[in-house]
């Protein structure tokens, strides 16, 4: 093995294909998109160099853009606040109560296995105001006042979308956190019980610190998922009504492919990339701490 690791040719044979794929599939598109962001281009014909004008337009003149950033941030907060605590709660429950373990593990993880588009169509039907199951349920329970225009009311639509996006991702965080919990040796809890710490205390002082790294991964994944969310929101609302659920990713799509403003769409794509990198770095920095050992 050491001989192979010292052989530069052998290393190159293993590394080059992956490196090439990375360059072609990731770096090259980023470079091309950056290049396009300095142009005014309709997807055909002449490309007009506009310097930083697309960036100035995006940051200072496009009034809708900041509303879309706001919507994306609401989703960002919602996913972190809902997905991770619920995923953790389910992981804790299944870690303690092993009855029906397989069944519940499957139930929690099923939404992750179904395509986001299919899931979004399903939620559209749930929220449908005339025959949707949610309003029908409220009617059946005599709670007509609770009926809502879930996706048609601009005040309500974003939260309805956030809920369904969050719901789909809970299973992912549950699996990560459950694996983290399984990695904590039972002796720690036994020692804690002898010292009088059990239940919530043990969770707070033993479980949480020991799965801190897993939690960090969950937070970063949830944050990036929220910032670049597209398919679910696009299928459910298309960014409407009256742009109340418009995210930065949907705006990017609309500018590039509906309005055929490829240059401006590329500018939004670069913003999205930088935003994801900055927030991921910030979260990594904020949540970094020396590894705890007991």
């Amino acid at each position, binding site marked *: 093995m050491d001989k192979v690791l010292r052989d530069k040719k052998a290393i190159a044979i293993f590394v080059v294909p992956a490196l090439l794929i990375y360059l072609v599939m990731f770096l090259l598109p980023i470079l091309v998109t950056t290049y396009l962001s300095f142009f005014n281009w309709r997807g*055909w*014909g002449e490309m007009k160099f506009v310097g930083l004008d697309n960036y100035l337009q995006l940051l200072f003149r496009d009034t809708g853009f900041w509303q879309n950033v706001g919507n994306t941030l609401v989703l960002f907060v919602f996913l972190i606040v809902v997905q991770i605590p619920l995923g953790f709660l389910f992981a804790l429950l299944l870690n303690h109560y092993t009855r029906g373990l397989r069944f519940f593990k499957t139930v929690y993880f099923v939404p992750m296995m179904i395509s986001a588009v299919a899931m979004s169509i399903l939620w559209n039907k749930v929220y*449908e*105001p*005339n025959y949707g199951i949610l309003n029908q349920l409220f009617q059946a329970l005599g709670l007509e006042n609770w009926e809502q*225009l879930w996706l*048609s009311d*601009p005040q309500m639509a974003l939260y309805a979308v956030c809920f369904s996006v969050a719901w789909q991702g809970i299973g992912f965080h549950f699996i990560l956190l459950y694996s983290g919990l399984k990695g904590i040796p039972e002796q720690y809890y036994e020692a804690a019980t002898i010292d009088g710490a059990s239940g919530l205390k043990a969770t707070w002082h033993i479980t949480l610190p020991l799965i801190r790294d897993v939690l960090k991964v969950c937070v970063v994944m949830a944050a990036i998922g929220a910032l670049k969310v597209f398919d679910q929101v696009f299928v459910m609302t298309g960014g409407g009504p009256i742009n109340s659920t418009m995210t930065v990713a949907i705006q990017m799509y609309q500018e590039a492919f*509906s*309005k055929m403003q490829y240059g401006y769409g590329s500018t939004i794509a670069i913003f999205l990339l930088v935003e994801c990198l900055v927030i991921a770095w910030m979260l990594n920095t904020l949540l970094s701490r020396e590894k705890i050992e007991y």
Partner: protein
Amino acid sequence: MKRKLTRYLAPASLILASLLLLGCGPDANVKKDVELSILTPFDANIIGPESIDAFQIAADQLGYKIKLENINGDTYKTRIKVNLSGNELPDLFFTWGDSDAMPFITAKAVLPLTEAIKSSGFQFSPSYVTPFTDGNLYTAPYTANDTFVVYYNKAIFQKIGKEPPKTWDEFIEVIKAVQGLKDGTYALGIGEKEKWQGDLLYNQLVLREDPQAFQKAMNGEMKFTDAPFVEASKKVQQLVKMGAFQKGYLQMTPSEMNELFFAGKIAMHAIGTWNFNPAIEKLGADLGYFTFPQSKPDGSYMDATTSMFGSIPNGMMVAGKTKFPAEAVKFAVAYSKVVNDLKVKKGQPGWIVTDAKADTPPHPAYQQYLDDTPKFTMTQPWWFGVVDAAVGLPMRDLSQLHYSGTITTEKYVEELQKILKP
């Protein structure tokens, strides 16, 4: 041995020579294996199966092979634009008319059909063969121009004891009467999720105020803040305020709305004539139709209607990079004729003079529409069709805001002016 060799070599040489002559001759008489790729957003349930069947019929007539792909309309809009940017257009593809067709023409990505139409000998109605500014024709029509109509459910009208309304006031009375039923029936259907249905209704309302208003405003002879636009906006506000539309209309797709209309939950639906096909099938004898009501007390401007396209018809285009340019343009024109004849046989209007006759009498509602059609001396294309998509999409965003009831008429027309004539 030598004799034996000669016996085999002589005919073999003859065959080889014949093949070489056939292959190298300037007019080689070997038919090429033509296979054309075709991409459309056609939905047989809406536009009728004949529009899709006609591809194979035309291919069989010409001895070509085709590879047909039909995809969802919204997906199609994106895909065909990406195909254009990547210079990967299929041999033949569908386009909506006017400004939707412009990118393909200005990018010089499509072939003119002018010569193929001329040499076909088919006699097209003049409005379908108005040349583009460069003197060429680029689309082979696949349907007659769609216009704006109002469909209604006769059973619901019978229940409320009303006749199809002729004036705006009567229209409002019908809405109130449907609301008076209090049985969950909605007065007016609109699927505003994709933002275009409300836009078309507003276009028609403006036309009823003044058929020249849009053109004048675009030419700068009038403003979008002038009376016709304001009055039309007030009518939209009136409909929104009185709750004329079905529950959840802002996020309902046109097909979801259609389902409610076909299920008898909605009394009226104002939209294009393409909906006749599914409406006849689903509502049968309960389907009625009327011309959009008049706004002016004297009944003026009832000879005008809004329509799908102006100068460039919706239809099939041929990609410039096709491997079979001559065959593809010939196919596009042949397809247009086949689908024309099939539609005429179904009792629908055609765009090419034909000997085909209707097999069965049209549905009464459709017959009434056919009888009304000659009365329209002026058709105005829907606004979105004549403006660039970069302008049209913000206009439709504004339209959805208009239908949400959260913007005043004054603000709406101001914004409209800013978008259409900045």
